[in-house]
């Protein structure tokens, strides 16, 4: 099929809709990275096998020939609830199964198709022990507002006909039939959408400046170099709904007059690359991409560029250098805007994956609809990868302006059992750690910056009291030191020095003057670096110094790591009152034979042999939990007297 004119799309949509209606019921297996790791493809194969055994045609092509089938099976993109994977959805009832394994498939098929029941034990279990039948009932989803993720998990990302059936490419048809490029830019501007890459530059302004810039051919680049550790939003959109991104980019091409597009994808995302290749090929086949799009004479091609692993390439001028075949180093200041001098020195519009993903819906549902979500200067929704020490890990989408508490406790379900909330890190290596006192703060671009953090691309890592804030700061600095391109001294030398001081503090060589020095260095690096990487690199240190200074001080003054994390400051101890004595599991597991026991005595840890790997705690049975970590004075007592208490 080919879309021969913008009006013709309506006809094709009806064909697709009718075809999918012929499949009365179907099982959708999540094929996002998380679920595939958990065995989703094997689950899919088992569904296919069982349905074929029943004589149901599962081949989608057959529906297009007008055949009916009782039930089918398909794959979908990421549902976002990766922790519960592999996930399976049964349509049209919307039954939502979690942790599905191959052995469960037969039971699900029988319940769904024969007895019209559900498999209770695979439904999501709420905290009160009750079960949620549909996805919408699960608290993780019911508190979200899904816009850019709306289709992820509901359509097959490898079949353009499903995207068309739910109204896909209508926005593109509208842009050809109803709007001039200026009107498209006006719609984007009025929606108030800000770039979803993290800095939040107004997209409409960028589009207008790319349109105005002179030079041919112009380029549209989709930035999928999602390098923040702890973030996977862009990957999920590319994997789960690739056509929305292609459509958004093509609309941007009409608006700016671009001829070529690039999608820059991280090398670590092979599935996203595969899905994009399929999507691009299908879009060309349907004439919604490539030459003479929808018979309008408009040409636009999209190429995939696989990044080779460099965090700094998320910066626009560095990304452009990388596409051109050079080291990905940001241009030195003063640098012209990429919208004027980009790829091959031609005007280049560069936006994040999600920014493009929102565009089709902004066009079809109108800018007012988008602006009605969120707050005044922060319209729309935000997508976060909620991870760390939290009950419900996964991908979430919420209206801008809701509070951290709502995100962490209502959607995330709170902190992992037996622990307490300590901090939440947003914005990755460019962001900051926020404490308990800020939980009721609104989440949007401006509020986060005002407290020393950053929206970033959307990683949100929750930490409990077992996480050492000094070590987290050290971790991020280690990351930035590795990723600094080395061009400007404040970033190259400054972050290195900050890292050395942090290593000293976490390894017991900290000095009282270190904290002031860290602050001084941090402020200088923020001011003196030439690109966003350096400008924000000290944030994790500066924000944790601001909110968790006492933890730094404990390391320096009291030889203590309150989180019981930093090895230099902790020791392991077996409590004789709790130990069951004869099990010896810890003794067998200890890799350095540091645990010894005399006959019928509590085993003891030889502190000089202990490498503090923690395996003994892992193997000690839950009903004893006899092994604990101690720090500070207790550790000194243990080393001197053989027990943490003095008496």
């Amino acid at each position, binding site marked *: 099929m080919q879309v021969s004119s913008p009006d013709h799309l309506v006809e094709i949509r009806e064909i697709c809709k009718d075809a999918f209606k012929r499949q009365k019921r179907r099982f959708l297996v999540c094929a996002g*990275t*998380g679920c595939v*790791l*958990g065995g989703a493809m094997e689950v899919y194969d088992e569904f296919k096998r069982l349905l074929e055994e029943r004589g149901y045609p599962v081949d989608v092509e057959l529906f297009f020939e007008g055949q009916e089938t009782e039930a089918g099976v398909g794959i979908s993109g990421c549902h976002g609830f*990766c*922790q519960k*994977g592999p996930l399976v959805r049964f349509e049209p009832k919307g039954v939502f199964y979690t942790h599905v394994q191959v052995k469960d498939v037969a039971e699900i098929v029988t319940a769904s198709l024969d007895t019209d029941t559900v498999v209770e034990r695979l439904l999501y279990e709420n905290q009160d022990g009750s079960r949620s039948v549909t996805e919408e009932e699960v608290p993780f989803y019911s508190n979200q507002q899904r816009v850019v993720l709306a289709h992820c998990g509901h359509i097959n990302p490898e079949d353009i006909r499903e995207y068309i059936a739910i109204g896909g490419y209508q926005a593109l048809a509208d842009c050809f039939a109803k709007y001039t490029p200026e009107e498209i830019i006006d719609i984007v501007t009025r929606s108030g959408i800000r770039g979803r890459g993290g800095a939040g530059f107004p997209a409409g302004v960028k589009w207008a400046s790319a349109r105005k810039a002179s030079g041919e051919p112009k380029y549209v680049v989709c930035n999928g170099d*999602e*390098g*923040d*550790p*702890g*973030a*996977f939003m862009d*990957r999920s959109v590319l994997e789960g709904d690739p056509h929305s991104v292609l459509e958004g980019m093509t609309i941007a091409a009409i608006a700016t007059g671009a001829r070529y597009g690039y999608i820059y994808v991280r*090398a*670590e*995302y092979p599935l996203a690359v595969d899905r994009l290749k399929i999507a691009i090929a299908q879009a060309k086949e349907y004439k919604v991409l490539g030459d003479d799009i929808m018979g309008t004479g408009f040409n636009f091609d999209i190429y995939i*560029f*696989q*990044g*080779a*692993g*460099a*965090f700094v390439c998320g910066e626009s001028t560095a990304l452009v250098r*990388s*596409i*051109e*075949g*050079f*080291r*990905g*180093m940001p241009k030195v200041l003063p640098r012209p805007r990429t919208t004027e001098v980009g790829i091959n020195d031609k005007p280049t519009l560069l936006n994040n994956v999600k920014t493009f993903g929102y565009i089709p819906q902004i066009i079809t549902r109108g800018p007012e609809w988008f602006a009605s979500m969120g707050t005044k200067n922060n319209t729309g929704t935000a997508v976060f*990868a909620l*991870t*760390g*020490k939290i009950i419900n*890990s*996964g991908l979430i989408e919420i209206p801008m302006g809701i509070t951290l508490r709502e995100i962490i406790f209502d959607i995330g379900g709170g902190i992992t059992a037996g622990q307490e909330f300590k901090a939440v*890190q947003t914005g*990755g290596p460019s962001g900051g750690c926020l404490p308990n006192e800020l939980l009721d703060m609104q989440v949007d671009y401006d509020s986060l910056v005002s407290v020393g953090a950053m929206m970033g691309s959307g*990683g949100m*890592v929750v*930490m409990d009291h077992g*996480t050492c804030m000094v070590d*987290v700061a050290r*971790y*991020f600095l280690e*990351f930035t030191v590795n990723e600094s*391109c080395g061009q400007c001294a404040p970033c190259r030398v400054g972050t290195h020095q900050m890292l050395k001081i942090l290593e000293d503090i976490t390894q017991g060589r900290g000095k009282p003057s270190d904290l002031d020095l860290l602050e001084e260095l941090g402020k200088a690096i923020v001011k003196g670096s030439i690109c966003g990487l350096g400008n924000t690199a000290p944030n994790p240190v500066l924000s944790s110094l601001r909110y968790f200074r006492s933890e730094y001080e404990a390391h320096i003054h009291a030889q203590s790591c309150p989180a019981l994390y930093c090895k230099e400051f902790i020791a392991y101890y077996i409590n004789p009152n709790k130990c069951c004595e004869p099990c010896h599991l810890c003794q067998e*597991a200890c*890799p350095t034979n540091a645990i010894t026991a005399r006959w019928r005595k509590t085993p003891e840890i030889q502190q000089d042999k202990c*490498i503090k*790997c*923690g*395996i003994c705690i*892992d*193997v000690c049975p839950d009903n004893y939990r006899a092994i604990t970590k101690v720090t500070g004075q207790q550790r000194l007592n243990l080393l001197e007297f053989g027990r943490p208490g003095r008496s």
Partner: protein
Amino acid sequence: MSEIDIEVGLKNVFARYKGATNELIPILQDTQETFGYLPEEAMKGIAAFIRIPESHVYGVATFYEQFYFTRRGKHEIKVCYGTACHVKGATRVVETFERELGISHGETTEDYEYSLERVACVGACALAPVVVVGKKVYGNVAPGKVKGILNKD
């Protein structure tokens, strides 16, 4: 690897390209795919093919994390070092692998059986800590599971 092997391998790679400067990174990626790493001779060949200085090829290749310049082990162990994994104990997992294999991260065992690496986020944070061995991914890896993972391969 003999020079002839490299020549043949490179020829196959070059057949897919025109030799433009902006193809350098894809060519390096394909070359690494072919040989498992970037042999010195291959980088010289690439420089000649694109007609750019060898220093340019070397400069670009060393800039990006993805490229290796020495032979890799049969099993490549990648321990995710993203924030979520770090918070959930990735450091202890790396240390356990280092101890079991007798190498530091970034190194390859003498028998070329294993390479050990810390990698930036693989994006499976809900399963943290994550370890990738070849194409197989292990989630919720505790130090105690490390021996089991090594015995499987």
